[in-house]
Every structure is written in structure tokens, then in C-alpha cells.
């Protein structure tokens, strides 16, 4: 026997969906799906940096800048990253002879203006 069609049969499902958890994830409470070893925002340790600028030479997009504001003897190292240019390949991390650069899992780097994308590490 053919099953009788009920008008509005989907209404129950629609009402049920109102009380279900959303299928999307909210980034506010931590990101799901970020794997261990993900290549995100760079971390910089100025104490170990020797200002060899090898990271700047190997960066494919020219996103990283290393600056010594002090003198040769008394270093005051600063690293700047243009997140708008960075492709997160982390070649700078591999190139660095003193391992003063490392990558974190921080991927929340969006900004409202281009100038805000230039960050100091």
C-alpha cells in the first residue's frame, strides 16, 4: 500500500532544527580543525638573533623584516611581519641558523586595514 503523503511533513524536522546545535563552529571559543604543527603566526626570539638576515633573503614574498635599532655591540633586535604578504611557508624558520624563529598555530590574523596587517613579532 502506498504511503499516504502528509502535507507539512517536514515541519517537525524544521522545528527540531531550531533546537539543534549549529553546524558551523564559532571561532570565539577556539578553532576546531587546527592540526598540531600547523603553520601560523611566527614567533621571534630577539635574544638569539644574530642579524644575519638569511630569513629576509629566503622569504619568497619579502614579508619579514629584521631590524637592529641598537649598535653592533649592543643589539636591539626587532622583527616585523607583513601578514598580507606572508604565505606561511615557514622557510624563514628552516633557514634561521640560530632557530630564533618558530611558527605557532595562531591563525587569527585578520585586520580591518592594510596597515594593521604589518605586525611586530
Amino acid at each position, binding site marked *: 500500500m502506498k504511503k499516504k503523503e502528509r502535507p507539512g511533513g517536514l515541519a517537525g524536522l524544521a522545528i527540531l532544527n531550531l533546537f539543534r546545535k549549529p553546524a558551523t563552529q564559532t571561532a570565539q571559543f577556539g578553532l576546531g580543525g587546527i*592540526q598540531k604543527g600547523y603553520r601560523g603566526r611566527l614567533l621571534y626570539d630577539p635574544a638569539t638573533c644574530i642579524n644575519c638576515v638569511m630569513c629576509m633573503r*629566503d622569504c*619568497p614574498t619579502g614579508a619579514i623584516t629584521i631590524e637592529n635599532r641598537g649598535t653592533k655591540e649592543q643589539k636591539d633586535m626587532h622583527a616585523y611581519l607583513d601578514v598580507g604578504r606572508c604565505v*606561511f611557508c615557514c*622557510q624563514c624558520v628552516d633557514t634561521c641558523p640560530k632557530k630564533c624563529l618558530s*611558527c605557532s598555530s595562531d591563525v587569527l590574523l585578520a585586520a580591518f586595514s592594510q596597515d594593521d596587517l604589518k605586525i611586530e613579532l
Partner: protein
Amino acid sequence: MSERNDHKVVLPIGPQHPSLKEPGSFKITLDGEKVERAVVEIGYNHRGIEKACESRNYTQDLYIIERVCGICSHAHTSCFCQAFEDMAGLEVPRRAYYIRGIVGELERLHSHLLWLGVASHEIGFDTLFMYTWRDRELVLDLLAQIGGNRVNYGVNTFGGVRRDLEADLMQDILHVCDQLEEKIKYYADLATTETTLIARLKGIGVLTPEDVRHFSAVGPVARAAGILDDIRVVEPYGVYKEIPVNAVTDDHCDVYGRTLVRVKEMLESIRLIRVMIREIPEGPISVRAPRKLPAGETLRRVEAPRGENIHYIRSNGSDMPDRVRVRAPSEANWHGMSYMLEGFQLADVPIIIAAIDPCYSCTDRAVSLSSGRDEQIASWDQLRLFGIEQYKKNGIDPGSIAIRPF
């Protein structure tokens, strides 16, 4: 759309079109519903990648080459790294070759799953599209764990690989392989028994073995016509020298054949991954690479998911290449596209285009500005002799390569 005096309609499709996500233009002359003539216009995605490589050092070029294609990024870097290592005379550790092989086969899996989804979407079989793209996520998550990114894994470096595979990760890969095998077997079963799918794909976009040779088609398009054109078999490189590949061919010569080849290749990739994980040796994963290459040139071939990938590097002795040439497989497969489209219905056009797994950004490489000077045309015999010499130089006996007779 314009109507000509002979009542034939010229239908422009693209550059922005609903069937594929990349820009490509097709001018299709229709006689009723039948495609009488098809003109393919590509070149909307030209990014000047080869020229960009000439003004950067080799390390920077590696990441430009990785971005030639969003799907077969590992195949491109593998080819580029092999060309570099060939010129620098580097001995790559065996473990690095195995890791490259595992990532390469995972990439083939995700590329073929993506293609299966796109192809089923083109024929209105969106359920399969959802299924395959769901399964593809498993592979992408694995690749993100291995390399740190879902698409541009950044695994390859000159002289080896950048990241090692830990025991836990290898167990995860095996677990995903088990899950995928069951699902892909179901798709293979579906492709060989589902009558509507077979009726929709069989007999369209035909490219016979003679046509494949004529248009120099590569990859699954050639293999679907029964031609064993798999670089992993013909000219084994890296890990494939130790682990032989059972190449998949088919005799349907049409879109259905290309579907079967890709589905069976996925099962073969799973087998290869299992063998590689079982036999992966211990040891270092990379050796130190020089920054400069000696003057000279080299050409390397790697089997990408879509077919044969060719990279050419010419060096003048500095840390920047003098010339880089990238011939992606889609570029070879586009030549036969007009021929494949002609004679079929307008409704077949999207699936015939999708069947070669076109990648527009792979294709649009260089514009040839020929001056007519310093050019010479080599005969087939000269090219053949040159090829035999090259094979011998790479330690391969050209006599052992089986080419299907016509």
C-alpha cells in the same frame, strides 16, 4: 549568443562560467544541440610565474613553484627539487624519498576524489559530489598534519623533506587508508554497476589511442585509451624505483574510461601508501643543499595526479635560475579538447571539459615570443636519439619501456 546566416548558433561560454571555478573561454558553434565546432581560449590565468622564478633564488622559487597549482602542489615541487638535486649532484636520503612518495600518493587521492566530486556535479549527481568531498576532508586533514597546511604542504625541500613522519602519524594515515578503501570500493562498484551513470558517461568525449598520440594527451586521459603513460612506471623516480606501481589502463577511450582509471588509481594509491609505510627506512630526512647550482640544464618528469609534469631548469652558475619552464599536464590535455567536444551534445560539454581534470592556472604559463632566429627544427629521429641518450644517462634501459603497438 549570436545566430549566423546559416542558422547556426555561436554560444560563448566563459571566461566566468558555472561549470568550473577557474576562468576559461569556449566559443561553441551549435547546429541545433550538436556541437559543430569548439574553440578553446585560455590564458586568463597567466601569472608570469616562470619570469618571477628567474628573478628570485632557488629557495624562493620552490614556494612559487608550489603555487603553480593548488591541487598538485607536491608534484610540482617534487619535480623542481629533483631537477635541482640532479644538477647539484645531491644524494637524497631514502627516508625522504619514501615521505615524498607517501605525500604524493595522498595528494593523488585527494585530487582524484576532488575530480570525482566535480565530475558527478557536472552530470547532476550531487549526492556523489557530497560523498567524495566529505571523504576528501580526511585526506586534507592528514596532509595538514604532515605539512602544516591543507593545500600547500611545503613538505619538499632541496635535498630531502622538511618534516619527518612520526609513528603516530603513520598509524593515522593507515587508519584513514582503511576508511577510504571501503568507500572507494563502493564508488568503484557504483561506477561499474550504476546504469544511469554508465549511460551518461559512456561514448562521450572519445579520444582513441591514435588521437592521444596525435594530441600528446597525458595522464588518465591517455591511460583511459589504453596507453600506459605513467611516469612512475615508464621512468621510475625516487621511491618508485624500489616500489613498483601497477599502472591502471582502460580501453573505453571516453569519459567513462577516465572515471574508471581514476577510481582504480585511488585504490592503487592506497596500496602504495601501505607498502611505503611498511617499508619506510630509518635515517635522516634531508641533506644540506648548496645555494648555487653549477652552470647547465636539466629536465625532469614526475607523475602528477593529472598526468606528466615536466620541469626544466637552466642555470648560469648563480643562485638564481637562468630559465625555468613548467609544463603541467593540463597544458598537454587541452590540445585535444576541441576535437573531443565536436560532434557531441551541448549538454555533454561540461562533463567532457571536466573529464580531463583541467587546471587553468597550471596551463597558463608562458607566451612564446618567437623571433625566428637561433631556432632549429629537430626531426623525430633526432629527438628519439636524444631521448635514448637521456634515458641511458638516468640509468634506464629504453628497450624495457613497453609502448602499446598500433
